[in-house]
């Protein structure tokens, strides 16, 4: 590749940050909770609701316990990074903006075959769906591109455009690494060069063992129930705060509990203690929570609610 090819995983992240900042996105930080994908960040789920315009980009560490392979598989990880962009309303040149981001991270647009292949997105736990594509670069899926149609059971109007980059896979491709653990994390010429494996090989092993064989399922089941109860307890509070006298709907704290329940469900799934029929029931319970959080959020200012003038 040419001279503008990045040299490390972090350089790719930094370039994406720079690119989307230059396109006017607010560069947010990762959400401080365990999530299965960048979509779960409230900056995407909640902010895609209501009429307020929005443009944000961020890295989100994501966890998928069932994908753990003890760090042995070249590209399957139980902990990985997603890069997420959400712009509302979706701009007419979103495809071009996206392609520009690939060029910014060193994909030579004259040598590669970039394709938009049908992939409708649906999140049963979020009660959300949208239409879009997997973006392929030389046959490899490098991003998900989605026009959100519904989130938490609410129609999205305006429609948000969502881009999700699977950072490890994309970076491995650009950096020409065959195994994720061999990928340079920082600059290979740095005084202390670190590879992805130096940072994550051991943790992948530790978590794979815990996820698959050790996690205490009774405790997890209890945590699930507790998160569910807490979420609903938060949402059952009156809109007006008796202490300050202000209208304070606690959509975000409630949504935190929903995220928690969702992640615990994923852990239980990895432990193999959820049967097929139960699976649907658990997903339904998480969906109920996310719907209720969405219902609450659209009652807030950020969710487009306009308070009557005093």
């Amino acid at each position, binding site marked *: 590749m040419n001279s503008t090819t990045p040299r490390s995983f972090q350089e790719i992240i930094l370039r994406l940050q720079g690119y989307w900042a230059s396109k006017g996105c607010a560069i947010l930080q990762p959400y401080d909770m365990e999530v299965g994908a960048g979509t779960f960040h409230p900056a995407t789920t909640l902010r895609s609701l209501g009429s307020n315009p929005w443009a944000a980009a961020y890295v989100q560490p994501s966890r998928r316990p069932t994908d753990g392979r003890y760090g042995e598989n070249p590209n399957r990880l139980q902990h990985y990074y997603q890069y997420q962009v959400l712009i509302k309303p979706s701009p007419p040149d979103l495809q071009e903006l996206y392609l520009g981001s690939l060029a910014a991270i060193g994909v030579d647009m*004259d040598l590669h075959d970039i394709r938009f292949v049908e992939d409708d997105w649906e999140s049963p736990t979020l009660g959300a769906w949208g*239409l879009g594509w997997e973006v392929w670069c*030389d046959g490899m899926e490098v991003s998900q591109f989605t026009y959100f149609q519904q989130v938490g059971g609410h129609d999205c109007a305006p*429609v948000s455009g969502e881009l999700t980059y699977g950072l490890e896979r994309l970076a491995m491709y650009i950096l020409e690494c065959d195994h994720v653990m061999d990928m340079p994390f920082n600059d290979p010429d740095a005084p202390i060069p670190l590879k992805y494996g130096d940072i994550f090989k051991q943790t992948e092993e530790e978590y794979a063992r815990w996820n698959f064989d050790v996690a205490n399922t009774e405790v997890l089941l209890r945590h699930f129930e507790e998160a569910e109860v807490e979420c609903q307890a938060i949402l059952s509070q009156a809109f007006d705060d008796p202490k300050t006298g202000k209208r304070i709907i606690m959509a975000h704290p409630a949504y935190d509990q929903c995220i928690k329940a969702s992640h615990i469900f994923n852990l239980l799934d990895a432990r193999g203690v959820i049967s097929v029929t139960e699976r649907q029931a658990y997903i339904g319970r998480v969906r109920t929570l996310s719907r209720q959080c969405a219902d609450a959020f659209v009652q807030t200012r950020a969710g487009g609610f306009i308070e009557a003038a005093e």
Partner: protein
Amino acid sequence: MTDLLIELFSEEIPARMQTRAANDLKKLVTDGMVEAGLTYASAAAFSTPRRLTLTVEGMLDASPTTVEERKGPKADAPEKAIEGFLRGAGLTRDDLEERETPKGNIFFAKITKEGRPAAIIVAEVLERTIRNFPWPKSMRWGNGTLKWVRPLHSILCITSSEEGATVVPLEVDGIISGNTTRGHRFLSPDNITVNNFDDYTSKLKSAHVVLDAQERADAIWNDATNQAFATGFKVVEDAGLLTEVAGLVEWPVVLMGEIGEDFLGLPAEVLQTSMREHQKFFSVRNAKTGRIERFITVANRTTVDNGATILTGNQKVLSARLADAKFFWENDLRVAKSDMSVWLKSLENVTFHNKLGTQAELVNRMATLAHKLAPAVGADPDMAEKAARLAKADLSSEMVYEFPELQGLMGRYYIEASGEDAQIAAAAEEHYAPLGPSDDVPKAPVSITVSLAEKLEKLNGFWSIDEKPTGSKDPFALRRAALGIIRIAIENDLAISLNTVMPTEHAKDLLSFFHDRLKVYLKDQGIRYDIIDACIAMDGNDDINLLVKRARALSETLKTDDGKNLIQGFKRANNILSQAEAGDGVEYSYGADVKFAETEEERNLFGALDTSEVKIKPAMVAQDFASAMSAMATLRTPIDAFFEAVQINSDNPTVRRNRLNLLSRIRTVCSSVADLTKIEG
């Protein structure tokens, strides 16, 4: 006359929707035009990933002006009636003409519909078409409310004649029609101005877009087969994949690559499925060894390095995919070789149906049933039971979790690897068959047994919880299961008494479900419902194969002259006898004696019955229905002659009783073959 060119340019349309969408565009626009009086000579539609195109040739410049005469009320009708007529027709009093008719003076009106220019009609029809387009799934974008399959960017709509091209003015949710489009996203992204269809296709081609999907598919296939052939390889045909791939590219470039050495040991089906489902690659076989060793991928562009980077990338992705598949395959083989009971155990956690328990319970019931069915199929009962126990084991394997379409097949590989008998392994693959009416049925005894057990168990289960198919609803494919059993029994010539393998509570109901499926199946083979009913009425109707043999023989017999007439003779005998029995209050069933016969015809009938009875009885025991029925058909001539010559109701009571008893022999003999009273006509 003018030509019309429409192009709807959008973000990438899913491949599977393109052909249908092009046809819909053509139908909706041309139907709308014709409805508005705008006829045309010919039309054709095309699609690429980013555009739907319609060309119409020889279109009228305007819809013709039409004059319609309408009869109104009588001239002396009340004012209100006349006003109502004028309102309805959109006319004034001056437009009316009063004419004398035999029925009095009546108002007539001429309604003139002015023709309208083509451009106005096209604009209306196209806007309506866009707003109501029947996409299987459509979406909104940005701030808009318009729905399209993906964001719609531009509308090209021009009429063209020798004088030049004119844009048909039109606006749909802020998208204004024009005479421009764009070429290939990467190779020729600039705007192109278009004058007519020929100009459009040739400019597109220069801009790296092949408009016609068939042309793209042909080009891909030719190039793929040529590249493979040149190096002693052969592309595995896959028409569905070819269509799909042609819908993913505007400028197809075929590239052939090699599958890594490490992965050539994977089963061919795994390679093929992984490449097709995940990467949309064609499989390429080494013509000499028959092994799949290469792949064909289709890029959407040319590059200065002749696709080298693209091919390397694709190869790398494939290697990662196959590394996954290999990981599954090796893990699975380890389990298969050490102890497959782990997989059986984990079926205990998989619900089959909430009222019917887990997959493991289903498998247990299947195994019991297989053991019971085996002797009738000629399989070893213990082996059949074991095969049934293992038939679903692969559902727990990692490979089937990843590629559900490989269920059964992986079962065979894994059971073979475990060292079990090949018949048991084959049963795992074959027990799902037949999956459709044209799918082959299993032929090996163990496979047949497990397949029957699986389907019967399913039917028994759903019958026991009263989940039967209704109308068009058959969510568990129970009709297919019943038809599968029917075909397996017939095509393998099996004698299976279904009553012995169905719980008595629902045996009768389920058997009649089988009979209904059988009627549909035999109807397609030209056997009438009444013939099947005549056979169902006989003993042993739970043996499907026996039932079919009887029905086929009867159907053949009824095609002959003797057969058809015999039915008439039988019915006549049966009617007379039934009436006499009802009138006399006795059953004439025994004691016909030739010594009371008065005529030659009567004596002949005695003789014929003696002869045929001797033939029919052993034939029936041997289930040789054809012989039995042809023996029965020989009775036609003596019966006809008998009725011709003899009056049943003789004055002599002894003679009369003797003749009625003789008729009873006809009834008995014929009824031993089938219930002929059910035959129509």
